[in-house]
């Protein structure tokens, strides 16, 4: 592995661990906005993760799901 890539990955992992630990430690005391701000920071950091791949399927239509559940036997 390219040493520069390895160093960056290590740096990223350490920062992510630190942020996650801090976030978990004071989650119960933090205000919702503080948690979301931390979450945004955490997410931005994750975006920068070397080799990160982000894919998520589209969510289901709630009206379709509702109709399906209401029509079930």
């Amino acid at each position, binding site marked *: 592995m390219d040493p520069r890539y390895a160093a960056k990955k290590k740096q990223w992992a350490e920062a992510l661990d630190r942020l996650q630990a801090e976030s978990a430690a004071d*989650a119960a005391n933090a205000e919702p*906005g503080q948690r979301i701000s931390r979450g945004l920071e955490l997410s931005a950091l994750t975006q920068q993760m070397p080799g990160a791949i982000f894919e998520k399927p*589209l969510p289901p239509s709630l009206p379709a799901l509702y109709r399906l559940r209401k029509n079930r036997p």
Partner: protein
Amino acid sequence: VRIDEAHALVLQVLRASAVPYAFIGAFGVMAWAPPRATNDLDLVVVADQSQFSQLRAALTSAGLREGAGVGPAEPTDTLPDIAVFWLGASPSIRIDIFIAKLPFERDVVSTSHSISLGGTTAKVASLEAMLVYKLLASPTKDRLDIESMLTTASTAGRAIHWRQVRTWAIDWGIEDRVDEIAPANS
């Protein structure tokens, strides 16, 4: 584009449009549980055809691209159930906008909480609404979100309005799932 930049931009457009909204998805969970990373934004809006057209134009003017959405499930409906927008490239941020069609979705917006966020305010779905969304979805990640929200509420001494959770769950026909997570006497 960073997700925090995308969030700020979408929030700015929403506030300017005056369309009632609430953040759901990961941001809804993070309001009530320890933060976790996410790479998209999910929100529900209450808008008719004209209001949604204005919101769509405002989002597009702000640099978002509209992609393929979901629905409508009802053929006579003119609005998608979920409008999907994208911002930036490499990586693009996806913004899923659920257009409220069901009473539950309208309730989610009307019972949302205003929170302070980076010098401004944002609306997020209530803890009770987020529990119902996650009970509806049910896969492993969503169950972990539920545990995380329940643990945080317990530690923080925050009461959960189980009657509200049950009312919504009964309408969806998933009251058995509430029984799995609610205290016996709730």
